[in-house]
């Protein structure tokens, strides 16, 4: 595994953004045939470091060596030429093109003709060598998310990548798909590719990596061999620099049904297929119900129906026993609903207005924030100051532009705003996606607190670890239908994972 000359060597990388030092003399070494985990909270500098390596930013100082020779990487093309490939969280594919055509993009033509036969041969070769097989003539947009990701990896290898950066590759995958990815990663490593694996899921990191580099506040705080003796707790504490309390689920008294959906159906504008079909569910006070599913199977629609943003064509939503007709968001909020949308910025906050503005948004025209149409600045400031303190939102000033906050702080602000006025029902969609360990822990503890206060929580998430840690029951949504209603204690990750892919639904 470790030859004398490392495949990739980054030394003393420095990158500043204004006053902020995103990378402080960072060293990183990657050997051929090795999977290196890169860990750190949001804002720890992982992404900056990888962007420097892939040529999106140029470093203020530092050197990069690939296989012993110094390289100058000023743009992604330089990085690709040096043998560095990156698979981003969001794919860069031409969805209308076939797999083959996606590989052809950017390839030199042969006497004015695209060199299709050659590309096809290379595709088969890569597929065989690393177990990354793909249907060459399929349209990229019709591939599953896992296959699209595989295509991105193949694209990088096709361009001659020896160093492969995978930025949170498992966040979009089901457990089964993740296992497939790991097999491919092992095959690639065996063939001498060096892989940098970025993930927030510590279980996966311990599973797949050979070594770990952990960053905090722009610096490398530890580089460890993954020798099987490491624990998640240990890693999490290194990442956030203090000890963590694992979420503890106290037993809570179950109360009356606070949120109920009765045979909700939604076809939507396209009308091609039902986006929600006959969805019924009930959440009691003092209960967290998890909603599992691969995104795109109706979670967003479900959340928006409950929030009153879209009206279902069939069925009804009841909050605290009150059947809502012709719902709108204002009415649902009046009945005691708090809603944390998946798209925090797009559907929740006001990016270029101040944090105070974002935080008073749902209640700005109510007491105490305003009277007779006049805003009460003092009351608003007091509220924001109090919430900022209580939630530990890190801001320099309260009139800071909302959009400049980090992801974790944005989510805290949103939670603070939604939970401040004691909602009866909380619907949260992907509340911890993209958050670092510390922020995730905080969000989880807030949900458990709501549970012990007798509130009803519907937690929509793709993160099975999270669902299993928090939920009393887990529902599975597949193709707009609830295909599973399981007690958390009586099920397993693999059972839920299977239901998420719809395989069990067909058997029923």
């Amino acid at each position: 595994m470790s030859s004398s000359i490392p495949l990739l060597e980054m030394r003393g990388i420095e990158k500043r953004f204004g006053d902020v030092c995103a990378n402080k003399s960072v060293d990183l070494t990657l050997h051929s045939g090795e999977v290196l985990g890169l860990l750190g909270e949001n804002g720890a500098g992982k992404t900056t470091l990888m962007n420097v390596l892939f040529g999106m930013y140029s470093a203020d100082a530092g050197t990069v060596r690939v296989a012993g020779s110094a390289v100058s990487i000023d743009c992604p093309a330089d990085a690709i030429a040096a043998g560095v490939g990156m698979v981003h969280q969001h794919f860069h594919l031409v969805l209308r093109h076939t797999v083959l055509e996606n590989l052809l993009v950017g390839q030199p033509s042969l006497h004015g003709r695209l060199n299709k036969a050659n590309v096809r041969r290379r595709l088969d070769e890569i597929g065989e060598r690393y177990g990354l097989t793909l249907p060459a003539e399929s349209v990229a947009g019709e591939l599953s998310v896992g296959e699209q990701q595989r295509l991105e990896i193949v694209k990088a290898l096709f361009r001659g990548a020896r160093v492969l950066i995978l930025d949170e590759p498992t966040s979009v995958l089901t457990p089964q798909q993740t296992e497939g990815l790991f097999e491919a990663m092992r095959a690639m490593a065996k063939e001498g590719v060096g892989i940098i694996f970025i993930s927030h899921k510590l279980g996966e990191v311990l599973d797949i990596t050979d070594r770990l580099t952990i960053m905090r506040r722009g610096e490398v705080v530890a580089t460890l061999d993954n020798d099987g003796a490491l624990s998640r707790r240990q890693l999490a504490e290194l990442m956030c620099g203090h000890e963590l309390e694992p979420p503890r689920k106290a037993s809570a008294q179950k109360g009356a049904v606070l949120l109920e959906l009765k045979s909700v159906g939604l076809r939507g504008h396209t009308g091609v297929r039902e986006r929600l079909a006959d969805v019924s569910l009930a959440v009691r006070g003092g209960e967290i119900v998890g909603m599992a599913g691969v995104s795109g199977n109706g979670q967003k629609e479900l959340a928006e129906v409950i929030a009153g943003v879209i009206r279902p064509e069939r069925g009804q939503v009841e909050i605290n026993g009150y059947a809502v007709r012709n719902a709108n968001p204002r009415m649902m909020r009046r009945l005691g609903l708090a809603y944390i949308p998946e798209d925090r910025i797009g559907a929740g906050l006001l990016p270029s207005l101040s944090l105070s503005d974002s935080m008073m948004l749902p209640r700005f025209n109510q007491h105490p924030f305003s009277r007779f149409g006049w805003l009460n600045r003092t009351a608003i400031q007091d509220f924001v100051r109090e919430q900022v303190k209580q939630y530990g939102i890190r801001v320099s000033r309260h009139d800071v532009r909302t959009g400049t906050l980090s992801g974790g702080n944005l989510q805290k602000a949103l939670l603070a705003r939604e939970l401040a006025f004691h909602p009866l029902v909380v619907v949260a969609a992907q509340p911890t996606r993209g958050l670092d360990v510390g922020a995730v822990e905080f969000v989880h503890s807030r949900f458990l607190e709501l549970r012990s206060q007798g509130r009803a929580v519907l937690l929509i998430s793709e993160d099975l670890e999270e669902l299993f840690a928090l939920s009393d029951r887990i529902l599975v949504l597949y193709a707009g239908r609830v295909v599973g209603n399981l007690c958390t204690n009586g099920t397993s990750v693999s059972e839920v994972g299977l239901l998420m892919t719809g395989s069990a639904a067909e058997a029923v």
Partner: protein
Amino acid sequence: MRLQLELRPSTPTWFNVVLPTAAILVTLVFCSALIMAAGADIVSSYKAMIVGAFGGRFNLVETMVKAAPLIFTGLAVAVAFRAKFWNIGAEGQLLAGAMAAAFIGAREGLPTWSLAPLMILGGAVAGALWASVPAVLKIRYKVDDVVATLMLNFVMFYLMMALLAGPWKDPLSGYPDSPDIRTAAEFRILWEPTRLHLGVLLAVVTAIIIWVVMNRTTLGFAIRAVGENARAAGHAGLSVGRVVLYTAILSGALAGLAGVGEVAGLHFQVMASLSPGYGYSGIVIAMLARLNPLGVVPAALFFAMVATGAETMSRKTGVPVFLADVIQGSSLIFMLVALLFTTYRVRVRRHASV
């Protein structure tokens, strides 16, 4: 070495003053080339322009009088654009307000004390009604607001021309001029014997009121929230359509007041040449002011200064008066470029050391 744009974490407040000033300075430098091309001396031309705009009581007052309708239309656009209601129709709303004022001001049956308030109210209502048409079309049928507001300008202009050619034609001269309003309906002159009328004061006071509305009231907050992120505002329980309608009503009323001021303070009648495009200038003024109601006042004064000063300059140096249009137009371009620096800053980027 190359230049690179980098996102700013926050925008310093002094940018609100420095950027428009810088944009105007660049505009003047740019227009110097045109003055040179016209064969005139740059310094004396600009000097003539400044003297023409501010030199002496009458020139100064003319600039202020000219600024009044521009303040109103600038405010109208600033309010609408805050909610992302793209009201290009201040011109038509101004004409609607002017016609309502001319109609009310000529009514013999009304008590004299009620004339001015009724003209103000009537003009505002007329402008608001005219602006609510495209707003309802947008909310109900998703009709594009840019196109609808723009097209309604022409509808209103030709409605006015039809009126002037028919029922409102001057019976004596036969010109397309409406009958004069009653003397008692004329706005009071604040400074005899100049033309400084009540409407000018009204414009400045309105700018302050609109600033208060936008920054201290729930309506202003709703307008800003909807403009910033309509989806988030909707999810938070705001009725986005209703806020857009209120915005249009406020915006149209302000544009209507521009028309009231011109009729009651200056021309005392409606005629074809009532507005030399004040509604359109309002768009540029609002942009120069960065949609800040208080910024609208200096921006409108700048426009008025250029317009009145250019005439003096033209007489003294022979530079065509159309230079005023070039200055006004190019100031928008340079302001838009300057706005880039509020969100980005330029960094000189060296190659990474290897």
